[in-house]
């Protein structure tokens, strides 16, 4: 009986994401009609080869990246909010984004001025070097925190993540303090976040990893539900808390870390999308929230990216500014509609 109430939202959200993909691909500095879009995708000869190549080489991977990254961040945020029982938890509570930023800062601000170039020595493209540095940094922080996750409770873990973020942040700002302006600009550019740098060859890595990460959350649905009553109740219902915590935090951080590695630190999306889903479906059950978060996260990312591209204008905006602009009102509306978040999180 409860399900029937919700069921019509899923097709609506699905269609919404589809429409957002079409809009994201069609609109930009060059406008592409639906006919041209279909033509480019099926390889029709009638389509303008320039537009066809724009769609295939740039727009399609960008839209795909946005959809996958949005879904991943949103699901990751949902899991973090449940495990930490904190409405403001985001995918980066454990500090994976600060780890990623340290990795990038080391490559851009420390190694490059010293004449060490990963681009030459490892034969990587500059973009791929950044991806590796960011993912490596995120993974290092994650590994440290998961080691602690066995020994301390979740609240301590949350604070630990925060402290590690501050610590790493100060190292990064030291590196920035002693850096040249052009190096800083490259770092800032990374920190704004961007879905547009993805090539098909990178997507061949990115898409399967995110896909596997998202699929890995399906067996976690039941565990996440058990966590709704807190760890004590979860334990009393037969959940092995340590293992479950490691699995959920590991999965969530992996998703967030990989997205940050490829696209930079993208804020707000991971907090806002799960709240929007709770507000829409009025439930905390993860078998509803998880698929909903995939769709809503993808949709918000696609729309935010579309706005960032500023179709029709001579400029573009930093992605992170847009996600904050889109995300903050979503959180505020969800808050006002629910009266307070304590209802969603008890307390």
């Amino acid at each position, binding site marked *: *009986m*409860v399900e029937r109430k919700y069921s019509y939202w899923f097709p609506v959200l699905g269609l919404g994401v589809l429409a957002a993909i079409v809009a994201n691909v069609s609109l930009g500095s060059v406008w592409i009609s639906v006919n041209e879009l279909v033509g480019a995708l099926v390889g029709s000869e009638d389509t303008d080869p320039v537009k066809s190549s724009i769609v295939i080489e740039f727009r399609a991977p960008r839209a795909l990246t946005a959809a996958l990254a949005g879904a991943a961040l949103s699901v990751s945020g949902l899991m973090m909010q449940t495990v930490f*029982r904190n409405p403001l938890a985001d995918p980066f509570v454990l500090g994976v984004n600060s780890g990623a930023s340290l990795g990038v800062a080391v490559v851009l601000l420390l190694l490059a001025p010293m004449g060490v170039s990963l681009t030459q020595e490892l034969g990587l493209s500059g973009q791929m070097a950044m991806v590796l540095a960011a993912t490596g940094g995120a993974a290092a922080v994650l590994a440290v925190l998961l080691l602690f996750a066995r020994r301390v409770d979740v609240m301590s873990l949350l604070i630990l993540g925060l402290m590690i973020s501050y610590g790493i942040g100060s190292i990064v700002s030291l590196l920035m303090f002693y850096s040249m302006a052009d190096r800083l600009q490259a770092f800032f550019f990374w920190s704004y976040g961007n879905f547009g740098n993805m090539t098909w060859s990178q997507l061949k890595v990115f898409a399967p990893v995110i896909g596997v990460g998202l699929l890995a959350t399906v*067996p976690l*649905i*039941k565990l996440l*539900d*058990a966590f*709704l*009553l*807190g760890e*004590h*109740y979860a*334990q*009393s*219902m*037969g*959940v*092995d808390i340590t293992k479950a915590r490691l699995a959920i935090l590991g999965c969530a951080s992996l998703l967030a870390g990989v997205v940050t590695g490829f696209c930079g630190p993208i804020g707000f999306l991971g907090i806002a999308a799960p709240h929007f889903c*709770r507000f829409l479906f*009025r*439930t*905390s*059950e993860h*078998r509803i929230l998880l698929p909903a978060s995939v769709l809503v996260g993808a949709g918000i990312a696609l729309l935010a990216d579309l706005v960032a591209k500023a179709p029709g204008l001579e400029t573009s905006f930093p992605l992170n500014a847009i996600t904050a602009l889109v995300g903050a009102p979503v959180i505020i509306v969800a808050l006002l509609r*629910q009266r307070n978040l*304590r*209802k*969603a*999180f*008890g*307390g």
Partner: protein
Amino acid sequence: MRTEASLLETERLSIGYRLKGGRESLVARTLSLELKRGELVCLLGPNGVGKSTLIRTLAGLDEPLSGRIDLDGQDVRSLSPRQRARMVSVVLTENVAVGMLSAYALVALGRHPHTRWTGNLLAEDRERIEWALRAVGAEDLADRQVGELSDGERQKVMIARALAQDASVLLLDEPTAFVDLPRRVELMRILSDLAHRDGIAVLLSSHDLELALRCADKLWLMGAGGAIQVGSPEGLALNGQIAAVFASDSLDWDSEQGNFRLYREAKFSARVFGEGEAALWTRRALSRIGFGFSEADGPSLEVRIIRNEGKTSWRVRAGDRARDCSSLDALIEWVQRNLDRK
């Protein structure tokens, strides 16, 4: 009198906390306790004596320091968390943040140790959930959001969640703590029905001595130092154990009334003539404002309760002053005014 095997049994169980450096903070030692099918047991004791620690240890949330716990004849250490969860369910005292869930969905969480990895509810699970909701009288709450329920309603739903877990032992830590008196009585009746009608072994910790004395089949009386006396409520009251555990300088066990009395040194002495409820409450009122009722010294106050055509009035006399009062309030006021003058 072991007519039935124990559902839960402890042998030389020691509970407490492990501190840093291998030291232990002992709460209670060598407890040998048992819970039987169909029994409602109240765990009573002053604050901070270790009731919660005992419940949490029995529920498997805290590790025992030593000794063993058997569930249905099996050592709990040989059970997987899932198997254990099918045998013991618990309602904790913490006021949980339940999220945005309907009462039904919350109760459904109790099926966790029974469902497969997908968490899908089968017909059997739904039957059990509906039974649990009915058992606590919460079937009409099923579609309500838990966040919108009153404390008493939410507590019922939390008990239903534990019942949905289908365990034969139900442990509750202070289930009536945040609930008003009528709701408290109702919850105790529900728990006692669950024990007697459905054969569940129910153990609850409580502060509420009077209610526990009236409802429990057995008391576990936990005193300072963690020693536990086991017995029927009446037996423990009669042999003075309850008084020994709870009595303090300001609280006096009244073994005739079966409850505690605030102890106040009597400054004056009074005698009340009359019977029934009116006399009981008159004595209570007088003792509250400083009167004792010992026969030894001559009373400084005499109150005679007069019933006339269904109306009650109080004739009060103190020395040479006397007065007829039509209500207990008027009597109290008169007595206080005349006491002040002395």
